[in-house]
């Protein structure tokens, strides 16, 4: 469960990306964070993923208050999230399998287990046949699916994505939406920042709309 209370994020220089944002996302729920560019969607995703710290307010994920986390605990909290970025942040000097294995290596899995689980994740997103391919050799949609495989390989409790369908063609974007729905169906909490109108229209009201850093 994710509970935000009066969450505010002010950057150095005074720009306020989020102001007094409060919401509650139940475990296993799928929520889209929507809004215009600069509304604070990416900031909110970064706050939930502990990539940034709130200026004030509290943010509790799975019973843990992220606002009060000490620095050393942050990496361990991040391991509970599956993170997907708009620009994928893939490692272009590693093949697909090695990219997916990275979170498992960080968590200390043995090489054999890491390979097995990474292959299962690649299979889930339909990329097992391309496990040896370098990211540069993959299409935009495949790269995004590879990023999703890396995000789910650790079996996270929360899947967080920032504009995962941006820059993708219509069919690839639809594939990605289906994948997220699949994870939601098996009980994963899915939070997606997006301005993909097709997705917003089919989300059955589970959307958190932001405007100028506030919930609207």
């Amino acid at each position, binding site marked *: 469960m994710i509970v935000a209370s009066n969450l505010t994020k002010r950057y150095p220089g005074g720009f306020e990306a989020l102001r007094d944002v409060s919401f509650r996302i139940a475990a296993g729920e799928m929520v889209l964070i929507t809004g215009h560019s600069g509304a604070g969607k990416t900031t909110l995703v970064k706050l939930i993923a502990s990539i940034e710290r709130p200026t004030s307010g509290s943010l509790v994920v799975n019973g843990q208050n992220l606002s009060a986390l000490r620095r050393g605990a942050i990496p361990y909290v991040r391991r509970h999230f599956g993170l997907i970025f708009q620009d994928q942040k893939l*490692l272009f000097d590693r093949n697909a399998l090695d990219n997916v294995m990275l979170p498992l290596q960080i968590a*200390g899995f043995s*090489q054999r287990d890491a390979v097995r689980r990474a292959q299962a994740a690649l299979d889930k997103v339909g990329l097992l046949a391309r496990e040896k391919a370098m990211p540069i050799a993959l299409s935009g949609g495949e790269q995004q699916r590879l990023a999703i495989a890396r995000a789910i390989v650790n079996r996270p409790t929360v899947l967080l994505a920032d504009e995962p369908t941006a820059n993708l063609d219509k069919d690839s974007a639809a594939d990605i939406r289906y994948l997220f729905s699949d994870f939601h169906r098996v009980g994963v909490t899915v939070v997606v920042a997006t301005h993909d109108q097709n997705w917003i229209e089919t989300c059955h009201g589970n959307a958190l709309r932001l405007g100028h850093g506030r919930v609207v």
Partner: protein
Amino acid sequence: MNAWLTQHRAAFVQAVRRLAGNPFNTLLSLFAIGIAMTLPAFGYIVLDNLRSLGHSASGGQQISVFMAQDASTAQVDEIRQRLQQLPGVNTRFVPRAEALERLQAKQDLADIVASLPRNPLPDAFIVEPTDISPAALDTLRNEIADWPKVAHVQLDTAWVKRFDAFLRLGKLALTLLAALFAIGLIAVTFNTIRLQVMAKAAEIEVARMIGATDAFIRRPFYYFGALQGALGGLIAAALVFAALAQLAAPVSELAALYGGDYRLRAPTGIEVAILTGLGAFLGWIGAQLSVSLSLRNFD
């Protein structure tokens, strides 16, 4: 524990791959480190050889203890016991009769000795301490001189003091040289690791976002620095062996000209291990400094 071991093994393998992945740069760095370590290591071995040569040239440092002419057998025995109880000291007794025989054996003195009405030589002890530093020798001499019926204690410390001063100067110069080259080694490692951190910026950023601890990110760089330093130490040891091999024959020839038999001492296995370990330690320090400073940019 298993996860910890797995991560260390993975970091080590990653460090080896980084070393092997850029062989030309790796070789250049290794030789820079190796040469930097060779000079102080070679200097240490040369000084140690000189110390050993000085010791053998003087026949070992001896203290001659002469008993009083009127010392009884019991009093001589007491001094013998006292000497035997001293730690780190070998003692040999030279009875006055044996000393006279030795004197007689010398051709040019035989007639003079034969004309003496009685044996003028005292009983004596030859004392060979293991600690031959001038201060220790002086202390020992003063202690023995105070014992009863000891007439004279003879020790030539002037040569020892001069040689010891020379060795101390050499050691000091060597320490300064070693400190300079240690800083050089740290600087080489620092720069290599800094470039690596820059090259791996994307990987570090992603790893942090998906839950990598600082230790996970730092570990391969530490292993890299330590491995590079250790290999540099091994190269230094090999260069020292090669240099000593070149010097061995001329040194033996020189020793033979002085009627001696001296062979240069090569580094022992333990010394090679210390050199390698020192290289690893300095490399690790360089990596630690570099990673700490470089990773600040990611905070």
